[in-house]
């Protein structure tokens, strides 16, 4: 069964450094998302991406964050200057259609980001 793949599985970085988290969505999916989960807490929506542009973003997704689809397969999340509070599991997800049109969300296994 097709999967969403994320790399790396674990990233350790120092405060103030830039990080790029990478994702390969399922090939026939059109909508891409990033979510995060701080340890022990609920999953939070960051951003959705469709047709090479941001469709929606949450309050968490401030100017330190950016997303890009640099080629036909990869989807990346960049954090420009990491803070301690950015430590979390970051999940990439994709769906075939827009959510309300009977389109389940498929998640990758996540990248655990640790900011020291």
């Amino acid at each position, binding site marked *: 069964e097709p999967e969403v793949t994320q790399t790396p599985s674990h990233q350790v970085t120092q405060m103030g450094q830039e990080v790029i988290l990478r994702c390969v969505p399922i090939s026939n999916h059109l909508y891409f998302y990033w979510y995060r989960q701080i340890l022990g807490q*609920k999953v939070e929506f960051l951003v959705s991406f469709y047709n090479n542009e941001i*469709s929606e973003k949450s309050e968490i997704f401030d100017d330190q964050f950016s997303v890009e689809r640099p080629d036909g397969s990869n989807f990346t999340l960049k954090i420009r200057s990491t803070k301690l509070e950015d430590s979390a599991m970051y*999940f990439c997800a994709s769906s075939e259609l827009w*959510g309300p049109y009977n389109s389940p969300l498929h998640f990758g*296994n996540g990248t655990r980001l640790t900011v020291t």
Partner: protein
Amino acid sequence: GIQVEQSPPDLILQEGANSTLRCNFSDSVNNLQWFHQNPWGQLINLFYIPSGTKQNGRLSATTVATERYSLLYISSSQTTDSGVYFCAVAGRGGADGLTFGKGTHLIIQP
């Protein structure tokens, strides 16, 4: 924004038992999904169910949209069912992003 409340927060059962997990939401939704987060942190989609009833093996779900709740039933629990079950919704305003509840932490003991 839309609020999602799940109950119970924690549930410990013996293998073979049945369970019902509940998700209440504060507004009309056009997207409701149930996920299982296993002990390795993977999020697995169980159901897309903004209304009606669906079944998949030992799991079934029912959403009563008019009364703003959804139920997830797990029958004949197995230890592999352990983990956190999340309900996630998007409101009728057309939001892309899902709002997750805090989850139900289920432990199935052998």
